[in-house]
């Protein structure tokens, strides 16, 4: 550059710059190309088999009986119910007498009980929680509770019987509760539980703590009512018992049956679970075979 004149210098300088820039551009381009190739080849080398199994976090499950309990609880919580609980070892008074089943009542035959002493027994039903709730409410209305829990009856175990099982009981007390309200409540429950097409039908029955008493059938979950083996070709499945709270029970719970009325209902959780999941043997719930539990891991 030193040999050039002052006039030439900027010109040559500019040319030189241009040449340099051109060379640099080529180099950069080449570098980028190489880098790209290198990246590409590296990525090619890093290629994995995306069909290999993933590293899923260990999956557990909630027991099917509790899944059902939670589902039922949620339906009734949505209708404004709270959840009440009570002891599993009950007094004869709460389990029977306060439910209009005095000692020597023939209806006590319906459920053979596990007594511990003459006055204490494993509760045979969740209904004592109704009485405890009434007493705790001290005459206030409205009462709207459901009571889930374990109950115990002397029964030889087989595919449909278990000496320990779960019930969910509901109780509503207010100024003007009618059987038609009970029907409405149970229809809504059945549709949420078993699908929007479900129908219910009521049949007269007998429970000492309700009058009138009814049994409730729901459209068969398997055949939708057309008749199948599960429903013994009737199109209906019996799912719960219910009725209007017996005036004696209201009285013993501290309510005036001339002032308020109420309804109560109760269902067996195992039965609902058997129907809903198509399980063939109630004993599976209590053997806790992992191959069984594993099947209930869904949300």
């Amino acid at each position, binding site marked *: 550059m030193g040999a050039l004149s002052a006039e030439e210098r900027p010109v040559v300088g500019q040319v030189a710059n241009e040449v340099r820039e051109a060379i640099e551009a080529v180099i950069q381009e080449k570098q980028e190309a190489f880098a790209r190739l290198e990246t590409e080849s590296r990525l090619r080398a890093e290629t994995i088999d995306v069909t290999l*199994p993933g590293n899923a*976090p260990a999956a557990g499950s909630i027991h099917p009986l509790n899944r059902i309990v939670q589902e039922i609880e949620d339906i009734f919580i949505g209708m404004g119910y709270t959840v009440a609980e009570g002891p599993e070892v009950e007094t004869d008074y709460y389990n029977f007498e306060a439910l209009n089943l005095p000692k020597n009542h*023939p209806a006590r035959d319906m459920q053979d009980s596990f007594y511990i002493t003459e006055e204490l027994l494993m509760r045979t039903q969740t209904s004592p929680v109704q009485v405890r709730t009434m007493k705790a409410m001290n005459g206030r209305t409205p009462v709207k509770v459901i009571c889930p829990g374990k109950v115990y009856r002397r029964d030889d175990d087989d595919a449909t019987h278990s000496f320990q099982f779960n019930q969910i009981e509901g109780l509503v007390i207010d100024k003007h509760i009618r*059987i*038609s309200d009970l029907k409405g409540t149970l229809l809504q429950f059945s549709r949420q539980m078993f699908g929007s097409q479900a129908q219910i039908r009521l049949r007269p029955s007998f429970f000492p703590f309700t009058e009138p008493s009814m049994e409730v059938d729901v459209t068969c979950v398997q055949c939708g009512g057309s008749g199948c083996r599960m429903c013994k070709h009737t199109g209906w499945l019996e799912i719960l018992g219910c009725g209007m709270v017996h005036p004696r029970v209201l009285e013993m719970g501290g309510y005036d049956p001339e002032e308020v009325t109420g309804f109560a209902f109760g269902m067996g959780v195992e039965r609902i679970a058997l129907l809903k999941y198509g399980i063939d043997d109630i004993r599976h*719930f209590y053997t806790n*075979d992992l191959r069984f539990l594993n099947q209930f891991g869904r949300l």
Partner: protein
Amino acid sequence: MKVSCHWLKEYIDLEGIKAEVLAEMLTRGGIEVDGIENRNQGVDGVVVGYVISREKHPDADKLSVCVVDAGTGERLQIVCGAKNVDAGQKVPVALVGAVLPGGLKIKRAKLRGVESQGMICSARELGLNDKLLPKEQQEGILVLPESAPVGKPIVELLALNDNVLELDLTPNRSDCLSMLGVAYEVGALTGRPVKLPDNAVHHAAERADRHFQVRIEAKEQCSHYAARYIKGVAIGPSPLWLQSRLMAAGIRPINNVVDVTNYVMLEYGQPLHAFDADKLEGGRIEVRLAREGEELTTLDGQKRKLEPHMLVIADAAKPVALAGIMGGADSEVTGNTVNLLLESARFDGGAVRRTSRQLGLRSESSLRFEKEVDPERVLPALDRAASLIAELAQGLVAEGVVQDKTAPGEAREIIVTLDKINRYLGTGLSKMEVQTIFGRLQFESEVGDDGVFRVTPPSRRGDIVRDVDLIEEVARLYGYDNIPTTAIEGRTTPGGLTKPQAIRRGLRRLLADAGLHEAVSYSFTSPAGAALFPQLTDASRPIRLAMPMSEERSVLRTSLLPQLLDIAVYNRNRKTNDLALFEIGSVFHTQEEELTRQPKEKHRLAVLLTGNRRQAGWNRTAEPFDFYDAKGVLESVFASVGLAEDVEYEAAAPEHFHPGRTAAIRLRTERGAEPIGYVGQLHPSLQSEYGLADTYVLEIDLEPVYERADFNIRYRQLPRYPASERDLAVVVDRGVETARLTAAVREAGGDLLESVRLFDVYTGEKLGEGKKSVALALVYRHPERTLTDEEVAERHAAVVKKLEQSFSAELRK
């Protein structure tokens, strides 16, 4: 109760109502029909035949060759294998072409060379339940009465074309333990009238009270005792129609007198008893309580010790029957009986029930008395039975009923208003509609303009006591399908879970999401199970069931762990070796030797981990569970309820736990650090006893967790100034618990120390015997400014010094 439709037709017209329709109608009306049984199990072409002659089969010892007239116009030669077949008998003959139950077709056949043109049938071959047959007819061919007309189809003769409804009665509807009760129910459902049976007694001139007197001593236990005297009966088999009806109802015919008492019991629901009058002493019947030391041998041959609360029927000398339950063997009606004393009474349900339970002796009779019989059927049933015995056993009924009774109960008038009915049901029924329903039920009712009904239910419906009972009758006859579906009116209420309920639910989700499976086990366990982990039972005494079903399930569980162990064993036996289980449930504790009040029911959480946490995969090796997995479960449980900082772990050695790998868990509360459970490995000897690999368990009380759980999230401002991080490794004695090290670090680090995290524990030869190296990462930060290097260095040095002083720690460089 088994109801033969054929029989029911005696009392109510069933024309046009098929058995299935009747069953559905009854079921929807509240009398549940469990099943319908057709008595004809597939018999066709079987007729009455007369055995003209019987010869031995020429080539077979056990066979006979009979010549039979079956009304076909020809003499049939039939080979028969029954021992009891004989000439002169009337027998059921399956003609060639006949069909028997099971689809068996009768063909012409040769038996050992002799032609047989049909088959003589046994009861079982006709599909009859042979347990219900009179004893003498249970073996061999069925021998029919001489009066059976030759050629008559057996199906007609035995009334086999009959459907039997099996009723599953609720305890309140014992009125349907009688054919008449069922007839009234069908009448109410269909509106058809009920026809009562003929019970007119044609009596002799002789008076019954010449023979005996009746007195009720135990007036509380018996409100009415009535009896008739019947002379000169001829005991023998009942006519076929009666036998068939009893068999349809599931009762075995015995003889004409006993059969009549059973028949009338089924007809009226009123149990009756016939005594051999000549076996009764002193011409006196007493209804009284048993006396100390008295005994009675009942009809079933059992000698029974009587207790003073048991109600008996006694003659002048001794008890002769357990009232309402079973008669005595001494005065039983036998083939030699000539004179009868026929009893119809109303015994108290509670008294019968108590005695029947205590003796373990239940009968069709006690079943009915226990549920209280209709006071107004005592006499009609007695008369009906007397008239049938006169007719079927040629007895002469003496004049008059000898009886004693307490004052009759008042007719029950119940008041219910139309308004209450409609308010209860949510309906708009009219006075007329309600009155029609009462009419169909045959309830006497009056209604005024004000809509007040005065109803007197018949005595057979003892279950109707209150207005709500009447409302139920209206509801079931109006039809539940016709009642509208409404939503509850009135104040709405917020639904929801209580805090403990929400915690249990949250824990279930948390643990399931962490890979654990929830188990639900039985609350009953073995005495050994209840005593397995004494430190978890709060020194509770075992609570034993009075009458357990098995020793394995005889006491209430005191801990959840023994059952989880059983579940682990169960799964291991089925080749499931990797298990992560939890259970949330109640345990039962008491300090009382004899339980006088309810035990404490404690909600607990238990976890069991055994086998591998992760199975080997294509990209990893198997990882077995260890202590820290169990502890980690607890840490996430406590973190989820805001108690991460409130829990302490301390080495412990409860029974049946690994003494070096177990910690007591304590929760800090206002009352101090409360022990709430244990986490650890099972003792290796227990593991091998159960055949389990290394197994880690924990169990905690949930009550203190409910109490202390804190769901209030309070936001802390994010740090605005940078932190200084310093790592630190110290060598200490192996026995130094790291929790004490970190506590000392926190203390010395003071307010500038934001966190300390343990990231390595190392033991090795280089460190020397009994030493370990612990590496900690410390983070220093000031909330309002940037810390200088000098400040951090000074505080960090204090930390190091504290460790050196407290634990003779050596700083690793």
